[in-house]
């Protein structure tokens, strides 16, 4: 039996466009751009940034000048024993842009402007949301992905990631205008607002499990598993993550909250996310964006950023490291070359998202 290398890639690419929204949470942050422009910010030497990058990431050797001239560099993360987990790391230089400006640009960036990223709706959330904060659901696009979400909701299908208690709240009512019936909108507005409130009060630990259709999966266990299997990254971000609600109770940092409707593997998926960032020594920055709830497709997704100020071609710039990690049941069924293919797709999608971001922002090339 003689086989050509036919890849059986599970098409989960769209779910891997992880960056969405970034917050600006550090006290006194508004002063930092001014300091930077005046050249008064504490500068980090290139060697420090590059060696710091090498100390915890997959990128052991980086030539800043080369990196600044090229596109984003991506690589798969270290192999992980849990088959549900997948990680990709990337790095690039944002020329002529400081870490603070990068954080601000990420915060402002709107993924919904790019149809290829398949983010249909995005909305910021207050810390105490009501059903009114999910009004946009009524204007969900009429496409196959959204119809599949509606059908799964009305059937309370097994792929729906909700708790048993949440499932009991659904009552099929009359349809409404638009692709999403009023009963479906009301159900999701209730689920999403309740989950947002529990995240604000108790972090990811307070999230109800996905146990509506059998095995109980907790997003907080998944994100902790992802970090546990990447020890160097966990150590690099431990102080920062300890102040967030990611994988634990509510932290001291206040999150920027949002919800989104996007497409994962041809299915419409509703997600809840939170982003944090914090400045460190030498004008470095760390940022985290967690998708702590997803109605399907994946259990949890986490994107971490480390940013260092560097000077390239005489311009103050930023060396950016980005780590994307995801836990999904469907990844567990991938083996061998299928897994390599899935990693490649994830790397490709992250490259695409970063390239679009850089193109959209002044620091892009």
């Amino acid at each position, binding site marked *: *039996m003689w*086989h050509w*290398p036919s890849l059986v890639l599970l098409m989960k690419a769209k779910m891997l466009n992880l960056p969405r929204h970034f917050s600006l949470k550090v006290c006194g942050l508004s002063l930092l751009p001014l300091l930077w422009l005046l050249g008064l910010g504490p500068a980090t030497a290139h060697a420090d940034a590059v060696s710091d990058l090498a100390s915890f990431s997959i990128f052991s050797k980086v030539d800043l000048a080369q990196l600044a001239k090229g596109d984003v560099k*991506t690589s798969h993360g270290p192999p992980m024993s849990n088959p549900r987990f997948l990680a990709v790391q990337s790095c690039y230089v944002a020329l002529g842009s400081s870490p603070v400006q990068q954080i601000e640009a990420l915060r402002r960036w709107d993924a919904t402007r790019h149809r290829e990223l398949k983010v249909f709706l995005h909305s910021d959330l207050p810390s105490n949301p009501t059903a009114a904060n999910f009004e946009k659901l009524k204007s969900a696009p009429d496409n196959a992905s959204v119809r599949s979400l509606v059908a799964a909701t009305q059937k309370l299908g097994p792929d729906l990631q909700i708790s048993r208690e949440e499932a009991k709240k659904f009552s099929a009512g009359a349809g409404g205008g638009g692709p999403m019936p009023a009963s479906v909108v009301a159900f999701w507005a209730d689920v999403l607002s309740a989950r947002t409130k529990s995240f604000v009060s108790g972090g990811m630990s307070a999230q109800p499990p996905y146990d509506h259709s059998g095995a109980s999966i907790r997003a907080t266990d998944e994100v902790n598993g992802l970090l546990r299997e990447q020890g160097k990254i966990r150590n690099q971000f431990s102080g920062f993550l300890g102040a967030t609600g990611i994988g634990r109770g509510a932290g001291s940092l206040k999150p920027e909250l949002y919800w989104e409707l996007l497409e994962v593997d*041809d299915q419409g998926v509703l997600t809840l996310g939170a982003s944090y960032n914090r400045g460190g020594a030498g004008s470095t920055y760390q940022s985290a964006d967690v998708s702590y709830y997803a109605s399907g497709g994946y259990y949890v997704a986490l994107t971490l950023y480390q940013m260092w100020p560097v000077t390239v071609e005489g311009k103050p710039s930023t060396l950016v490291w980005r780590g994307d990690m995801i836990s999904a049941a469907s990844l567990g069924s991938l083996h061998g070359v299928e897994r390599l293919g899935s990693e490649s*797709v994830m790397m490709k999608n992250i490259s695409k998202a970063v390239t679009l971001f850089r193109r959209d922002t002044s620091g892009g090339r």
Partner: protein
Amino acid sequence: MKRFGYRIFIAVCAAASLLFATRGFAEENTSNWFGSLTHVPLEYTAEDTYVGDGDVRRGPNKRVNDFDENDSIVHLIFTPRTSLGVLRFGAEWERFSFGLPDHAALPDTLQSVSLVTGLDMQFSDSIIVRVEGQPGVYDTEFDNLGWDNFNFPFMVGGTYIYSPTLQLILGVSVDVERKYPVIPAAGVRWKMASQWLLDAVLPTPRLEYEMNKDVSLYVGANVKQTSYRVDDDFGTTNGIPRLNHAILTYSEVRTGGGFDWKISPVVTFTGEVGYQPYRNFDFYRAEVRYHQEGGAPYGMISLHGAF
């Protein structure tokens, strides 16, 4: 219809034993001794195909009529992840049995046992390359083995991931004992819609329709070509002395439809029926060739999976 039932039994037993092993490991995991084994990634196949009565012809007059065929395959490949990529290391056994009439100048058995050694490498976010060889013994009855029975066919192939829904495949298969030692091939894998997949890649091009998460239907083909060395006295016995110890390249094409049923995350059952439109026994160095005169229906069952 020779020994078909027997072969089916072997195929199913082989797969069943794998199943049993998997469950055993899972149960033992709690007591830890086999714990690490549950993480040994591997893929397996146990497959059996029966092809009904068909005919072949050599020249205008020499015919071999109404013979059936049985093709059994078992393979087990470990696929651990290494820093270079995904290693592929295992073994494969394949046996063709033909229910030939007496005095047909064709072997009634073609058989191979080979190691599978290969590596899948990720060169970028768009390119994955597989290099794989199958060193082993390619013979008939394994009753008089020598170094001449050893062969090392190999292939190198690359996949270009254009997008999550479209991949292009290019490769080359090398077998120094084959009539055409180097055969290039190209293919495409295109997810046309959420439930439709065109997997036009040799040796098993398919058009698939995903009925649900566990069941897919497909139509497609299976192209087979392998070289074997026949016995030292094969030619003398059959009245063509130049066929003694000769190389035979056996080729066949099956076209049909079937289904994949994912019984569990690690076991998929496949059933397929169709028609075999092409078959060729080619002693190309001795210039003796039997080509298909009449096709035949076939049925295939398979248990396969990975964990």
